[in-house]
């Protein structure tokens, strides 16, 4: 499964309680569409840290990295890429 699809599954399972009727496209803003609330973002961050072994600094928890499935996947991809290269 791709990173984006793993994150999509996590959101459906944990925040939407299995409801698959929402538009969860890669570019949909999770906040504007009310798909996740403030505390849910923290759960998402914890999931990303545990699942992909990346460290997320407070300054990384910004809309540019976490407000859509596509952005989260890109953020994770960049971090994994960086640690492999190092």
């Amino acid at each position: 499964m791709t990173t984006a699809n793993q994150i999509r599954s996590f959101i459906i399972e944990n925040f939407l309680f299995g409801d698959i009727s929402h538009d969860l496209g890669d570019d949909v803003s999770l906040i504007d569409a009310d798909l996740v609330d403030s505390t849910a973002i923290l759960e998402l961050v914890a999931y990303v840290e545990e699942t992909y072994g990346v460290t997320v600094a407070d300054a990384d928890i910004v809309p540019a990295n976490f407000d859509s499935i596509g952005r989260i996947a890109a953020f994770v991809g960049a971090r994994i890429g960086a640690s492999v290269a190092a």
Partner: protein
Amino acid sequence: MRVETFLQQSADRVPDKTALVVGATRLSYAEFDAQTTRLAAHLQRLGVKPGDRVLVFMDNAAEAALSIFAALKAGALFSPINASTKTDKLDFIIGNCRPTTILTQRKLTPVATTAIGDRIVALLVAGTPEWDLALAETTPLVPHGGIDIDLAMLIYTSGSTGRPKGVMMTHRNIDAASLSIITYLETTTDDIILSVAPLAFDYGLYQLLMAVRLGATLVLEKSFAFPAAVFETMRRERVTGFPLVPTMAAMILQMRDLATLDVPTLRYITNTAAALPVEHIKRVRDLFPNAALYSMYGLTECKRCTYLPPAQLETRAGSVGIAIPNTEAYVAADDGEPVAAGVIGELVIRGPHIMQGYWENPIATAERLRPGRNPWDKVLYTGDLFYADAEGFLFFVGRKDDIIKTRGEKVAPKEVEAVLYAMPGIAEAVVVGVPDPVLGQAVKAIVVRSNPELTEGEIIRAAAKALEDFMVPKSVEFRDALPKTDTGKVSRRLAAESLELT
């Protein structure tokens, strides 16, 4: 003074000053005043008359602020509705206050349309060509002839009965409450306030009303999901005032990189909605040593009751303080007489800020508003238990009813239970608040199933379709039976106690 006068006076005094910052939108006082006048004239053209109710069903958008003042300029009263409100509750509110117009946003239009049903209610949607036309209205505004003892707003609040009640506030109530709060916070036209609290919540709403009264700047954010981004905005906008609720404080205290929190201009922080744990108060003060921290307590029915002067935090961190300026707060026995220091009783509030009652609900009104010591008095019984120390500082003990406070929002267990009982497969349900480090309390449902196949996820999912997100149970526990009182009623208190034992 009427509330729209706040805006007109600030526009006269500081026309070029920034009134509102929402994302990329910046409005000066002159623009804010002119746009709301045109929107008000448009509302009148749509048929809005003095005394009509106008619902503002939006998130923290600039259009919400415009809608609120436009409704007032048209002589109507506004009712701010939380953007996460679902169809059933909105349907109830529409039936209760019979608005002539609803102002909303594109993403909320389906909910609004379904809730309206076949009733005749005008719908004006921000972000549409109709909205642009409304802001370009050329018909002049007709003077409404209203005065300051007219109603300005209805704020719907959840009561223990589970049915939302519309708290009626006059312009004069808002005038008194906002002046009192401005007095003790010592806010001025130079303040720049960043608010994440929804405008549908009186804490968020008053950030707007007070900023406009002062001619100060309000930076509105829709969410605290990205604290680092909010703090970045605070630095960029040189924010001086930051209203918190305990959940936000808990999120801030979980942050590891403290440099992201540095806002050199920050002058004061406020907390309300629920008490900050004393330990969190200490840590917030350590994180923001140059900001005065105000612990406050209030309820929608009078906006605010008490505040703790920041100098008292050293010795009385657990207190919510004293009555706000020009009001009285005292602890009363069941007969309404004040009790001695140290004795627990119900907090009673007297002042020019208490509500006029609940909209078309005289029974609920009579429970809260009762005669005071003078023949002309009406005083507000808060339903909250307090005691005062020897110096008169007030300490919150608990609620007389079962309201759960989660994420700073009030949840009536009965409202959630009604939804659970409506689900097939549920025989009995009771909803309680359980301690949660971030939410304050989390909503928990204890359920007896009639269909053993029913899962926790199915119940939560169904609840999420019917309830605002903060009301949806975070967890469901299945039992074979629920604890009952001697009279056979399901006991919420016993259910809560049974959880503490496990």
